[in-house]
């Protein structure tokens, strides 16, 4: 394939790239005692992108033959020729020949399906200690994504990234009351990831939380001081800051952080990082889907906005350095600017110290996800559970707790950052396409957050 783009692209093609992707998956779902789903899959295809006439055309197919590749190239070229709109340019295009084959210490294929199911059964048995947990669903998933990337400037990158995860959903009920809590652990690599992030611990935490919420009261509605746990502070970093730092949104007039580089957007306790190079994290990858090697990005340093996340196009447009943030869900989608592993750096507050200073507030734990409108700069995210904080003490459990605020004010409202940084919360981020990410951070305390109870 290396010379394919050279030989077949038309002379007025400024740039072309080809990704050939093969995704092998296994998914096992266990509900209580039984395996309810066992699915294996093979998904492969090619995606070709052409920049010609200042416009980008993209064509993809599940047919991975050379003939199909040629048809995709022609189709992408025709599209780009016919588009009249924005003038796109790529500079500093990668020419690297690289290889990154991540295998994991305990590869998927070295453990049989029977052993994987056996492990899930052992895990399930731990839930018997929680008598109000009536339904437990465990979902084991593994994937191996093999990518070949070529571009018309001679780059050739071969990548292989395995991912492994366990998702836990506990439904507890008693006396007509019902609650549900989910937890998950996972990351890049083989089954050794479960040594780093323990499904056993996650299961116990999830079941305990589900039981606790049976007696929880609805969260109060109003404006309060909130302490977010490491998992929720990660979602906070992702939703409240990360999305607004995606440079495609900045250029499109869709980010409230446009024009604010090197200005203060938060107080000096706040540093936020996006780092796809962290070993084993769910959002890690060696090269992005434009063949750019990944690197650690400090988005906010001491409250100052320091950088955006870039693709080739956005870095060229804004005259900045590319930083390997262009990711595609699969061969069937063109790369977009995306996050990876996003987290708030640790500070020096102890958790007890943070709580002690709150007269009335909310301690929010875990995450049900969130959503942001980067244009207006508003966001919402939900916790798995919460607790009231009264006179410096954590008191009653709360359920169905959501938080909302504005990007441009919230980072000024963080007045304490904990020293207990924790990562390892895998998830998928949606932006028209899903990509695996993770987030994390330390405990953080935020003043004057809008809280809504279910």
């Amino acid at each position: 394939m290396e010379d394919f783009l050279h030989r077949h692209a038309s002379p007025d093609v400024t740039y072309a790239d080809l990704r050939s992707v093969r995704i092998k998956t296994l998914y096992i779902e266990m509900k209580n005692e039984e395996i309810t789903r066992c699915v294996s899959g093979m998904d492969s295809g090619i995606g070709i992108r052409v920049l010609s006439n200042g416009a980008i055309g993209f064509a993809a197919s599940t047919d991975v033959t050379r003939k199909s590749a040629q048809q995709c190239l022609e189709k992408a070229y025709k599209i780009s020729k016919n588009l009249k709109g924005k003038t796109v340019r790529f500079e500093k295009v990668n020419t690297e020949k690289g290889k990154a084959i991540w295998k994991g210490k305990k590869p998927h294929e070295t453990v049989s399906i029977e052993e994987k199911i056996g492990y899930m059964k052992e895990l399930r048995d731990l839930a018997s200690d929680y008598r109000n947990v009536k339904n437990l669903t465990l979902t084991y998933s593994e994937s191996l994504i093999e990518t070949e990337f070529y571009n018309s400037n001679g780059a050739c990158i071969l990548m292989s990234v395995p991912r492994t995860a366990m998702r836990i959903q506990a439904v507890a009920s008693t006396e007509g009351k019902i609650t549900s809590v989910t937890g998950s652990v996972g990351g890049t690599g083989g089954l050794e990831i479960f040594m780093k992030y323990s499904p056993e611990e996650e299961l116990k935490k999830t079941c305990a939380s589900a039981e606790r919420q049976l007696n929880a009261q609805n969260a109060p509605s109003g404006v309060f001081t909130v302490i977010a746990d490491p998992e929720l502070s990660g979602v906070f970093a992702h939703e409240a800051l990360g999305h607004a730092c995606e440079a495609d949104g900045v250029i499109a007039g869709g980010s409230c952080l446009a024009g604010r580089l090197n200005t203060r957007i938060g107080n000096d306790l706040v540093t936020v990082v996006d780092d796809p190079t962290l070993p084993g994290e769910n959002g890690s990858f060696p090269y992005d889907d434009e063949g750019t090697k990944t690197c650690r990005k400090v988005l906010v340093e001491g409250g100052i906005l320091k950088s955006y996340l870039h693709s080739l196009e956005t870095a060229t447009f804004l005259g900045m350095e590319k930083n390997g943030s262009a990711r595609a869900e699969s061969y069937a989608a063109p790369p977009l600017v995306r996050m990876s592993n996003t987290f708030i750096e640790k500070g020096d507050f102890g958790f007890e110290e943070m709580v002690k200073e709150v007269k009335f507030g909310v301690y929010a734990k875990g995450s049900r996800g969130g959503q942001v409108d980067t244009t207006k700069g508003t966001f919402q995210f939900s916790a798995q559970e919460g607790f009231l904080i009264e006179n410096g003490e954590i008191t009653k459990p709360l359920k169905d707790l959501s938080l909302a605020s504005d990007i441009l004010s919230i980072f000024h409202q963080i007045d304490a950052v904990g020293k207990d940084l924790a990562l390892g919360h895998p998830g998928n981020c949606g932006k028209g396409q899903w990509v695996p990410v993770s987030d994390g951070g330390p405990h953080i305390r935020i003043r004057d957050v809008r809280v809504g109870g279910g």
Partner: protein
Amino acid sequence: MMDFEKVLNMGRARGIEVEIFHQETTFSTINIEYHKIHSMDAVDTAGTGIRVFADGKIGFAFTTEKTQKDMERCFREAVRAARHSKTLKNFVFPSEKKFPSVNVRPSNKIERLSSGEATEHIQTMLDAVKAVNREIFVCEGHFGYGIEKTVIMNTAGVRAEFVRSACGITIATACPTPDSVSIGFEEAESPELDFDFAELGKNAASLAFNGRNPEKLEGGKKNVLLVAPAARNVIESTLLGMLQGHHAMRGESLFAGKLNEKVLGENISIIDDGLLENSLATAPFDDEGTPSRTTTLIDAGILKTFIFDAYTAAEFNLKTTGNGIRSMRLSAGRTFKSLPTPNFRNFVITSETASTEAILKDFSPCLVVYAVLGAHTANPITGNFAVNIPIVFEYMNGEMKPKKQGMLSGNIADYLNRRVMISKKRKNCYGTFTPTNFAMPDIFIPDAQITGS
């Protein structure tokens, strides 16, 4: 086309029931960025899911690979997967061979739409935005269109094929103001290319324009009108899950164990209409070959049934309701990569109706919520939710005044137990992460909980 009969015969030879679900799609998308056409994607995919029922157990595998050898390997993978699954002796693949006719045909207009014509439509929409005000722009938008062919075959004798067309557009607009930005949006989906692109642009621009200079939103109990797309988002994340058989029959729903009991207000009925006209989700059969039908789930507030696919129905000795739809978790697309699960086809809610204008007049002052953020974080078991409301107006004394963002929270079953009213006019809103079309009216909820700005 693959010779799928050979795969079915492989199963027959080994006493294994087999089902093939094959899907081919050709889809193009034009992407808009900062009020200009940015790029276009053209994607052709073909893939096959093979489900087997061997020794009383279900197994499933999928592939995009094309050769007979690949297909046979996929079959063997499905058989291997079945060995680990639970035993479900009474499962049978659907065997009905007659399907209802549906008033949805593949659109010639969509099939023949050239990229040049498509970009002209987009330009019409962009011009209409600027006609409202030169400062307003589309920050992001997507216009997609294409054709999908589905083939279902099984060893019980089903041979079903359906070709459908689809197009959809979403645009987000922004209107800069001296100290902030006001936002708007518009969306439309249809199996026919019947959009008024100029109208869509005008609507999205007007929403952003009218939202300038918002005033403080006071919290408390307020009358709320959820405009159709916002109502879709809230219901999709709450009520839908509570009515899905695989959740409800396991006790994972507030409605579990409440068949024939009053669960919503007596003026509310909920229907799943697999045969609804002019909908992207309508087809003669579901994704496992069960004929489409109309099912009343809640009749005048009384819970009548949940929705089922063949597998879930067999688990609980019930019959499928023709709702076996294949989609990945949190995805609105249907895919060969997934086993069927019970999903709504076309969600229809009925209640006391009036025009939107009459509802607002009767229940003034009333907050009009155009958009919600974070609906997917709701609790799908209990129906509790708390969402941000970034585009909200207050209707009072015949005027609509923009308000700053706040939060709307509560419980969907509680709200639908009140004197809810719905607008006469409905809008087809496709799911944001479920493969469901919502024939959605605006929904009025009295005394909803609002957290102020």
